[in-house]
């Protein structure tokens, strides 16, 4: 246990040291937030601003845009391929020779990183949104606290998905194709680009049944009060259980392949 706390703490500190990267990131998220929010504003204007679209009011959508920009780095939607690279470079051999649990090792590090990104990237980006646009506040302190919990669970769901995508490195030599596919799936099915309600019917039904929405949509719904708190958190919890089991099974399969076929 102590090891995993220490790993998380170091990942947290490590992430905090990249100040320049944080500033550049806040700038980028801010610009994207402003652009996307402006597009949605124009969209609602042309609809007659008072109307909700697919159950989403203008202010709810704008709030989602800023929550998404703020959470982007915290849940690290795509772009994390460290495990794949370690598999392909053979570095995983030295890692697996250590007496620790490989899945928990990376989960702890990712959690430390996520916490740091939440503070140095998420909070400032959200403040920019709150200053420049009309953003809704959560309706109660309970909602606000549940949102934070939901974000923490979103990090775990996202980690499991990324970890499993990384394990493809055991079987595939060139991961760039998988990386591009994974980024596209995460962007669309999580609700990063737009609320899932905006998707055409068949895709929307599929997206709602999949774990990707637990990364972005669920924290938004908990924040905006669109689902009962227990339902949002329960949905995430369910997927966390399923994904942890799947990730471990997949890891065991990959590891078996490695120890038989060699690195």
């Amino acid at each position: 246990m102590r090891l995993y706390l220490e790993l998380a703490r170091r990942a947290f500190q490590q992430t905090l040291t990249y100040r320049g990267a944080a500033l550049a990131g806040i700038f980028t998220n801010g610009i994207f937030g402003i652009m996307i929010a402006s597009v949605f504003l124009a969209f609602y204007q042309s609809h007659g601003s008072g109307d909700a679209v697919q159950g989403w009011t203008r202010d709810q959508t704008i709030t989602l845009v800023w929550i998404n920009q703020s959470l982007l780095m915290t849940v690290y939607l795509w772009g994390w391929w460290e495990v794949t690279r370690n598999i392909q470079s053979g570095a995983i051999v030295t890692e697996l020779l250590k007496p620790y649990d490989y899945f928990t090792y990376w989960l702890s590090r990712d959690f430390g990183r996520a916490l740091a990104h939440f503070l140095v990237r998420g909070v400032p980006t959200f403040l920019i949104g709150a200053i420049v646009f009309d953003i809704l506040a959560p309706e109660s302190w309970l909602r606000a606290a549940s949102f934070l919990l939901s974000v923490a669970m979103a990090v775990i769901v996202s980690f499991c998905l990324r970890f499993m995508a990384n394990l493809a490195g055991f079987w595939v030599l060139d991961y760039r194709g998988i990386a591009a596919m994974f980024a596209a799936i995460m962007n669309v099915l999580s609700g990063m680009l737009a609320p899932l309600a905006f998707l055409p019917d068949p895709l929307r039904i599929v997206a709602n049944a999949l774990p990707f929405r637990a990364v972005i949509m669920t924290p938004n719904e908990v924040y905006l009060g669109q689902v009962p708190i227990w339902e949002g958190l329960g949905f995430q919890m369910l997927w966390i259980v399923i994904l942890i089991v799947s990730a471990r099974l997949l890891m065991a399969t990959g590891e078996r392949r490695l120890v038989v076929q060699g690195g």
Partner: protein
Amino acid sequence: MTEPIISARGLTKTFWRRSQRKGMLGAMRGLVDRGGTEVTAVDDVSFDIPAGEIVGYIGPNGAGKSTTIKMLTGILVPSSGEVSVAGHTPWEERRQLAQKIGVVFGQRTQLWWDLPLSESLELLRFMYKVPERRFKHNLAEATDLLDLAPFLETPVRQLSLGQRMRGDLAAALLHEPPILYLDEPTIGLDLVAKTRIREFLAELNRSSGVTILLTTHDLADIERLCKRIVVIDHGRIVHDGELERLKARFSSKRQLTLDFDVVPDLASAVLPTGTALFDQEGPRVRIAFDRHERSAPEVLSLMGRFGTIRDMSIDEPAIEDVIQELYAESARATA
């Protein structure tokens, strides 16, 4: 003799090497059919290593050294054969064994690139559950013996290769494993760094009795550290025993250096059978002879007729020549 701490019986590993196919279509076809060739990387290897020994495991590129080490650590399952390391079957009890072995792969590091060396070592402390007092003691000792102090706080990515290797050695030993596997620990290092690491390993083995199995292409490592060497070629053991015995078995050619008190005229002289003039610089003459045909005292007395000999020495065969002859012989045997 006591129970060996490492023992291997009939250890064999065959890899399936897929034939590389070109292009997307080739890659797709590679997924379905099993075109390729079988490579036997380690072939019926058996040895016993008693606790406290330093064994050099050598052989040309691709001989199967790293593959053997991987099987002894448990990260690779053999195709057949048995292994016992400190009472464990490595691939079945990798976690338990991890506490009892230290591993250094010279080609890669087990430290964290972004962290200062001291932080890496501290993480390893939690990983191996080393009690704080032991950790402090071991760290102080390693810092002293490996001279880590100047770069303890430097991020690993900024260390020189020699510094990094010392850091890796310290990392491998923090949990006081009785067994240390070293796969090319001196690769890429300069002479000073190599010497320092050899001294450290010799001292470690002497003072703590750590059993060391090391692979290397630098035979000076072997000469400095190992009484016993196991030579592997094409996956098969071609020699297992004392370095001295290997020297004796090969290079039956010896050289005798003689200092005459006057310059002898050997150019036109007929030398005794079984000897040959290697070179001559004034009064210093080097005679090559075959150990099986003539003994050194015999050569000495036969050469006495060319003048008074003031001094003499016998040159040991160079280890490089010995190993080269060994490889050549095993190549002839497999051809």
